[in-house]
């Protein structure tokens, strides 16, 4: 009965078929899928580079690859993972899919611009993949001058062109989200009735809009200096390489908040649903999202403590960096308080959400160690830094992404994934992740520098542990790829609201119709009314048919 109803009912996936209906779509939900496939591809490319890195680091000698090749490996790993996986991940996939639905709109404000964003993203990816195929780049994903602008003999210009292009794609996505959230909320949906995921996407979009152009010009100037021999960062002319670092990190620090804020948004949705409770301190979480975005723009110099920046500037940035931890901590406290006396269900999305709290906390706290100027002098450019940011970006952001994918998978596909496999995968990822990256804190503290393919023999045990963990992590990542694809054909049919969650996206069939809602919803209460039934919260002209 259900199968027949779903197959006969028209929704966004079966409304039209054929490659052209996908490549020329303006439906935000289909565009989300275009992004999902693309970033998954880039994730595994970045993972390939990581595999080679961890294989090399099994032994203290440089025996797998040469130093120059190793430099290319970690550069390409960073570039691919940051610009082509992490930054787009939640915004372009879950954001694109959910933002219009969560606010009761038919689509984003600018659907054609949305499609253009994806094409621009792909173009950027093509530039960068071409650079990789043509021999790669060895400057590090940070492109520090004057090596990148003068001395490196690798494909710098092509790579930065790729990053510039994909950056433009993210600017347009941010623009689309900001205007949509301002202008297209359903009747009755005031700002403080919005789901926290929307607040998170709004805050992320602020960073997209105000930060990305600066790295665009920074990289453009590197390319220009490289190609036309101008004097911008070149010390031979009296130029200052630190200027590049100011311009680079002005974006790249807020960029890490681009990577974590959306995951925090997902976190708020998961914790509330799987505790069956309103979030503790909704207003605080909402304001904290915006606070992280704003304060995050004031701290970039903490990447430059030993770069030649003035001591005074270092002190200012160190102090401000302490401030930015506060809103993040508020969120962690509030999620934890939400769990308290909640009715906890340990489905896979919740496993990711719980893992997120622990791992993000470790990552965040170690960030404070790094923000402390005096400590950073010792651990800068060591594996301590690498462990810190992987705890946040992988332990935090990627877990948030996977949790979100699992949570909204039934909505996006009309199918449920196999829950036992999902829980196993989540646990494997958690174990593999910690085995990979916790030893790196120790390595860094003991003095192992980053970006070296050789190391003193006494560090080998920890490196082997790390590489072993990476192999487990790889298994953990491949599992969802397999069972999620499997579920598209063989998964149980999902209803409109399999998790009994609260939110407008759950008040429409799975998969949703092209225009999301049969009739525009009217909102009379805030989000997360878990103590009520959905019918008490949302009204429609006539009930949406499942």
């Amino acid at each position, binding site marked *: 009965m259900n199968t027949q109803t779903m197959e006969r009912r028209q929704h966004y996936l079966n409304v039209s078929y054929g490659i052209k209906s996908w490549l020329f779509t303006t439906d935000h939900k289909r565009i989300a899928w275009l992004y999902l496939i693309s970033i998954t591809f880039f994730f595994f490319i970045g993972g390939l580079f990581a595999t080679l890195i961890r294989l090399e680091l099994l032994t203290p000698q440089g025996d797998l690859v040469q130093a120059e090749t190793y430099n290319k490996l970690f550069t390409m790993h960073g570039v691919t993972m940051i610009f082509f996986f992490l930054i787009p991940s939640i915004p372009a996939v879950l954001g694109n899919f959910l933002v*219009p639905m969560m606010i009761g*709109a*038919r*689509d*984003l*404000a*600018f*659907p054609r611009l949305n499609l253009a964003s994806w094409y621009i993203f792909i173009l950027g990816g093509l530039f960068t993949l071409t650079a990789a195929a043509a021999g790669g780049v060895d400057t590090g994903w940070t492109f520090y001058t004057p090596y990148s602008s003068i001395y490196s003999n690798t494909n710098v210009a092509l790579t930065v062109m790729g990053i510039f292009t994909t950056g433009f794609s993210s*600017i347009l996505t941010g*623009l*689309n989200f*900001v*205007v*949509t959230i*301002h*202008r*297209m909320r359903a009747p009755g949906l005031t700002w403080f009735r919005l789901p926290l995921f929307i607040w998170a996407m709004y805050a992320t979009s602020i960073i997209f*809009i*105000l*930060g*990305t*152009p*600066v790295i*665009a*010009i*920074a990289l*453009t*100037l590197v390319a*220009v*200096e490289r190609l*036309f*021999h*101008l*004097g*911008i960062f070149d010390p*031979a*002319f*009296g*130029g*200052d390489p630190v*200027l590049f670092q*100011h*311009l680079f990190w*002005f974006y790249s620090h807020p960029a890490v908040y681009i990577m974590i804020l959306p995951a925090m948004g997902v976190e708020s949705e998961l914790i509330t649903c799987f505790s069956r409770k309103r979030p503790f301190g909704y207003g605080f979480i909402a304001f904290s999202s915006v606070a992280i975005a704003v304060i995050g723009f004031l701290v970039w110099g903490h990447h430059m403590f030993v770069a030649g920046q003035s001591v005074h500037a270092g002190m200012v940035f160190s102090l401000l960096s302490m401030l930015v931890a506060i809103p993040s901590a508020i969120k962690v406290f509030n999620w934890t308080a939400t769990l308290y006396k909640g009715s906890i269900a340990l489905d896979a999305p919740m496993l990711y959400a719980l893992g997120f709290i622990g791992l993000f906390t470790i990552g965040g706290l170690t960030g404070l160690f790094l923000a402390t100027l005096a400590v950073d002098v010792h651990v800068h450019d060591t594996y301590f830094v690498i462990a810190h940011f992987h705890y946040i970006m992988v332990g935090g952001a990627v877990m948030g992404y996977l949790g979100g994918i699992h949570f909204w998978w039934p909505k996006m596909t009309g199918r449920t994934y196999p829950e036992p496999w999902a829980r196993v995968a989540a646990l494997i990822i958690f174990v593999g992740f910690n085995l990979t990256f916790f030893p790196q804190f120790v390595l860094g503290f003991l003095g192992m520098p980053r970006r070296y393919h050789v190391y003193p023999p006494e560090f080998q045990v920890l490196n082997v542990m790390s590489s072993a963990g990476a192999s487990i992590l790889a298994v953990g990542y491949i599992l969802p790829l397999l069972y999620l694809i499997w579920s598209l054909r063989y998964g149980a049919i999902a209803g409109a609201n399999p998790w009994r969650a609260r939110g407008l996206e759950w008040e429409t069939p799975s998969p949703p119709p092209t*225009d999301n809602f049969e009739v525009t919803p009217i909102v009379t209460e805030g989000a997360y009314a878990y103590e009520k039934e959905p019918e008490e919260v949302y009204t429609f002209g006539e009930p949406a048919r499942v």
Partner: protein
Amino acid sequence: MSNSDMVHAHQFDDFAQQHEASWNGMWVFLGTEVMFFGGMFAGYTMYRYLYPQAFASASNHLDIVLGTINTAVLICSSFTMALAVRSAQLGARKPIMIFLLLTILLGTVFLGIKFTEYYQKWVEHLIPGYDFSYEPSLARPAAIFFSFYFALTGVHALHMIIGIGLLTWLIVKAWRGRFSREYNTPVELVGLYWHFVDIIWIFLFPLLYLVGRHLG
């Protein structure tokens, strides 16, 4: 095509919402442009602070007459653009096209003068990296000044070329009768863009041309 045939885009509830969203969207985009140019302004500020003498000296090599004329030309083009938007608000098809054309003309004059200046710089050996020649004690930071000169005015010129392309597109639409009192958003949006490019030049002119004139 009469405007009663026009339907607002399906994601919007009405024309008013569509117009508001488009207006907001362009302002957000201009915000990104401020930051894009801003990176270069930050670098410029740093080096002007570090090398005041070289910057003043190098700046005096720019042609202040051409620079002033160009500033006036661009401001005039903003005037004609504002009039084009006004004509669009009134639904006056012919004046829209005339003012857009004038704007394009003035923009082209600006670019012509600009490229003349570039040519002059080449003749005077003031292009860094290409046979650059300057008074030895100031040569290196002067090269930084000229690098920023070409980077800033080059990116600005690129934006103007794109703007002229957009204006041409608008003329075609206006000629086809696409604009009316009810619907003239594209003209407004291109107008915002064009005025922004003018504002960038309003800052570039004193920062590049007027650094050291008082020092002779």
